[in-house]
């Protein structure tokens, strides 16, 4: 594996995200991890750092919980909006479920129940909602011409499940086309009698178009020059477990990932009498060692647990420095 190569020829990779900032070709950056580990903080910080060197950066939250507004103390919506205090940094919040709902309603009105049933059927394919919303976003983003787009993803292990989508959809489409070959005329007869649009053929065309768009998207996401994924975790078992699973899944999807941000590290000062802190520090140390052993070929960034919430542009700015210049922990016992 590449780890042996890294071992023999190189020092451990630098513990910063500098490589991502320097890689000018990157267009899509995903930030993901378990809930509450600091994905939003990390993605905001990265956006701030990237904005310094790129022409324009867009930060998109696909998390229905929407923390971007809280992080920057500013309301964001479905339209990209400049973040106050930054020249070339914009943000938007989209709701995967909301956009799919709109799409279903907008596409067909409610003239014929059978058409709706077919659509419901089509949209029950796993991952289709996310895929659709990504496709929507990408359509928008393409016309907006940002140099880099950062996704603050929802806290699930299946964020990029939809990348399997073209194959899944292909199977589904062939099934549906078989069905419509048999029942199409009948269905069309019923639908036609009601005089509404949205016959089976039209439906098929829509699906086909969707498949093409998503195929294009997944091709881009699989290109390591264009896309990378940053895993955020905290040094605890479940988070680590989730991260490992996510990395394996990303490998399966052939999505590049070579950075891990380890968040909320405790560094009790010398002579600290806080029993809890030192105990936790010991536990975190154990997992940190495991991380270093397991992810030799990753940039592992270590960020400390702060005494305050990282909210507002100023604090985020300060925090973002740690992604580039490694945090120097205070002397320990």
């Amino acid at each position, binding site marked *: 594996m590449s780890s042996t190569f890294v071992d023999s020829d190189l020092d451990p990779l630098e513990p910063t995200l500098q490589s991502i900032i320097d890689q000018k070709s990157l267009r899509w950056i995903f930030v993901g991890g378990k809930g509450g580990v600091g994905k939003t903080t990390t993605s905001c910080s990265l956006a701030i750092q990237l904005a310094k060197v790129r022409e324009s950066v867009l930060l998109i939250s696909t998390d229905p919980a929407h923390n971007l507004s809280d992080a920057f103390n500013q309301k964001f919506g479905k339209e990209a909006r400049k973040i106050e205090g930054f020249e070339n940094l914009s943000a938007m919040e989209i709701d995967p479920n909301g956009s799919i709902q709109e799409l279903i309603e907008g596409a067909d009105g409610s003239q014929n129940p059978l058409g709706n049933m077919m659509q419901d059927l089509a949209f029950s394919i796993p991952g289709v909602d996310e895929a659709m919303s990504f496709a929507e976003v990408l359509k928008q983003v393409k016309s907006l011409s940002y140099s880099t787009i950062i996704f603050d993803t929802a806290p699930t292990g299946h964020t990029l499940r939809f990348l399997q989508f073209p194959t899944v959809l292909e199977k589904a489409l062939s099934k549906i086309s078989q069905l419509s070959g048999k029942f199409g005329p009948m269905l069309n007869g019923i639908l036609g009698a009601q005089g509404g649009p949205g016959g089976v053929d039209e439906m098929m065309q829509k699906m086909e178009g969707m498949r093409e768009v998503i195929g294009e998207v997944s091709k881009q996401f699989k290109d390591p020059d264009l896309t990378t994924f940053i895993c955020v975790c905290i040094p605890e*078992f479940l988070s680590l*477990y989730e991260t*490992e699973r996510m990395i394996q899944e990303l490998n399966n999807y052939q999505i590049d990932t070579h950075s891990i941000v380890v968040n909320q590290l405790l560094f009790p000062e010398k002579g600290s009498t806080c029993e809890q802190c030192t105990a936790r520090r010991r536990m975190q140390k154990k997992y940190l060692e495991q*991380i270093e052993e*397991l992810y030799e070929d990753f940039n592992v960034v270590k960020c400390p647990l702060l005494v305050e919430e990282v909210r507002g542009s100023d604090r985020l700015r300060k925090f973002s420095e740690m992604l580039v210049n490694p945090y120097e922990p205070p002397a320990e016992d």
Partner: protein
Amino acid sequence: MISLLILIVVLTIATHLVNTLGATAINNALWMIYTSLPTKTSQEVRNQKELQKEVVKLRTELRGTSSQDEFAKWAKLRRVLDKKITDLEKLTSSVNVTRTKFDTQTGFIRWVSTSGASWAISLWYRREPVFWIPEGWVPGYVEWGLSFPKAPIGSVSVQVWTFAVTQVLRVIAPIIGSLITSVMSTRKPMAPMPVGSGEKVKKEL
């Protein structure tokens, strides 16, 4: 036409054997032979078995490793295991495809050499007598029946002969089978009882 007579007897016995042994048993035996030959498939089957062993070994190792205390080791094992399992699945499906194909082919050959052959013979030699019976042995209408459908009057037709052999075989095959098993069990009282009807018939020949 003595050869036709024997040919039909042999063919009927073969068909009966195949039917009693069962298609699956024969296919399994043939598959065993096929995979012990130095072919690409046999290599695949060997690899599959090896992989299976490795997966089992890795599983036990993984169970013995604490995921909380040695996460790195555990995760690495897990990666190897996952990879092996995917490989195994791929290999298994490929072997299964070959196996299905093999089964279809052997099934076809089996049919051609038994039912197909007897069918062809009965069609080809439908006008030929298998053997003649002396004149006056049986009344005329029975002669007509014995030569049914197309053989010359006074002879036994292929169809009737095949039917007769089949009926006789159906009666005596189980008798011979049980006779052999009883002889075997009295000769070697300590030997385990033969298992399965298929084996019995094998011994009878």
